[in-house]
């Protein structure tokens, strides 16, 4: 139970987040509200753990997500009590709280002004910079958000979170080349992130679909390799197999012209037997995952429901074409 509270709640499904925030009053009641700084009482009370504050922070986010603002205010109050309201992370949390309390765009603009004032004082306040980017993006001011984000990355190019957010913004604008570049920066910082490998593959596929670049042999080849790498790193990563299946299908049905460029970069698609083997592998694994997930076998749970449905549809489509 608390283990899911120790990780940032962004990945939680709505159901889990709701469950967490429903337990919030209990957790708040049972956890110590403040840890005394006095030497004498600290000899007798339980020692302060970093986990306690992580739990408050994540609980705050979960509560905001599910609209339980009362508990969120309690959590924030305790964090402010402990760390003071000039702590950078707490400042960002206070900002989130204000954003959540805001009812219209005018109030959000006021919050934005506050962020800008804080950044005037201390331009390296990374949590606030990130809040500002998120707020700008949710206000629909995408160019401003990109400028703010590139400003952050200019002085802190080792921030993988910021790079992936930048990639997501570029992707939402259909700028695939830039989005892929930003994701490659994430890979430079986290070379074994299999989801990022697969994500690059997905972006490459989408950029072929949108047709803004014409060297599709190279792009398909790289997408295939990215999916393979992500499977190599995590051998039952559903999205990896899904992407692999799509890429191999596309390569088998409609092989692109071999290009010099792809050849010299070492990114040309593999030969036909390898492709067929890879296709078979992806089909087999996708089938296994969907079957075992639906059967409710132990150790095969935890996949995303929507992804399973999509995988099953893909399999049905491909099997119907082979029968025909």
């Amino acid at each position, binding site marked *: 139970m608390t283990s899911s509270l120790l990780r940032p709640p962004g990945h939680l499904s709505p159901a889990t987040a709701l469950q967490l925030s429903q337990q919030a009053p209990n957790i708040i009641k049972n956890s110590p509200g403040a840890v005394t700084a006095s030497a004498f009482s600290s000899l007798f009370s339980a020692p302060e753990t970093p986990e306690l504050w992580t739990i408050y922070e994540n609980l705050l986010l979960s509560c905001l997500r599910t609209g339980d603002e009362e508990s969120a205010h309690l959590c924030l109050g305790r964090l402010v009590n402990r760390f003071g309201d000039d702590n950078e992370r707490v400042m960002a949390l206070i900002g989130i709280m204000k954003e959540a309390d805001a009812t219209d765009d005018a109030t959000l603009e006021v919050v934005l002004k506050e962020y800008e004032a804080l950044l005037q004082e201390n*331009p*390296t306040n990374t949590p606030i910079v990130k809040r500002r980017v998120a707020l700008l993006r949710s206000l629909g001011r995408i160019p401003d958000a990109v400028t703010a984000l590139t400003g952050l990355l200019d*002085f*802190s190019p*080792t921030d993988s979170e910021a790079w992936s957010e930048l990639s997501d913004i570029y992707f939402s604008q259909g700028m695939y080349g830039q989005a892929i570049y930003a994701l490659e920066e994430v890979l*430079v910082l986290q070379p074994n992130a299999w989801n990022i490998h697969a994500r690059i593959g997905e972006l490459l596929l989408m950029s072929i679909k949108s047709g803004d670049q014409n060297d599709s042999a190279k792009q398909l080849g790289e997408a295939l*390799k*990215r999916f393979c790498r992500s499977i190599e790193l995590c051998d039952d990563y559903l999205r990896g197999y899904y992407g692999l299946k799509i890429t191999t299908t596309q390569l088998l049905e409609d092989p692109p012209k071999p290009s010099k460029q792809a050849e010299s970069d070492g*990114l040309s698609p593999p030969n036909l037997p390898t492709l067929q083997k890879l296709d078979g*592998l992806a089909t087999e694994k996708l089938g296994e995952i969907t079957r075992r997930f639906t059967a409710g076998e132990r150790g095969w749970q935890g996949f995303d429901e929507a992804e399973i449905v999509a995988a099953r549809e893909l399999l049905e489509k491909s099997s119907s074409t082979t029968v025909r």
Partner: protein
Amino acid sequence: MAQLPPQTIQRDPQLFYWILFPITVVMILTGILRHYASVLMASPPKKVDQPSLKEQRSLMHGVAVRSNSHALSAPSFKARREFLTTAFESGAYLKDPERRGQPPANPMTDPGAMDGMMGMMKNNMAMMVPNTLIMSWINTFFSGFVILKLPFPITIKFKSMLQAGVATKEMDPRWMSSISWYFLCYFGLQFVFNFLLGSDNAASQMAQQMQGMAPQAPNMFGPGVDADKQFQAEAENLAVIKHYSVLDDVEQRLLEGIKTR
């Protein structure tokens, strides 16, 4: 073979209450006091301004590109290499580009460096002053008392250690003087402090001494380090790296891996 009768010394039981017990309590209390004193005196980490943050992070970014270059495909690595080497060589990320090529400033004049040294001084003082005080306190009041008999026999070599301050040649080394009890506390109270204050306390002198003895890690961004030189070196490292990509032959590796499983 006449066995030596065990030495017996008639000790006043009051010795226990007035020497052994006070020394122990005082040691524990000073340890706790030292912990809180160092917590109070610890200066908060200094804010790094934006240009120097940029300088540090850019260098780290360069190192990351170099060491994780295998995650990139050949063309994207080539593009990054070209961009980063030119930027590094031209000093685009330097804190103050005008000062390129000049010798680094004397660390003594840099207020940032002085801060770090003051911190070290404070720590050392917090360790040395109480120790000296307690030593002299014990020497003045309790020297020459035999306060304790160890429950196990030990060899004669320990005599000088355990009976410091008691100049009696014939006495069994099992007898301990007060100053020796002080040393025993000094080395042995670490676990008591761990229990009372948590494991990362500043009270246990032993841990601090160990830290002092370990060779200091070279300070990458410390004062007196020429950032321009670091950037030049990093540019060279990037330029000479022989790039391989993890994407090369990944499908073969994958198929073979599946087969062997």
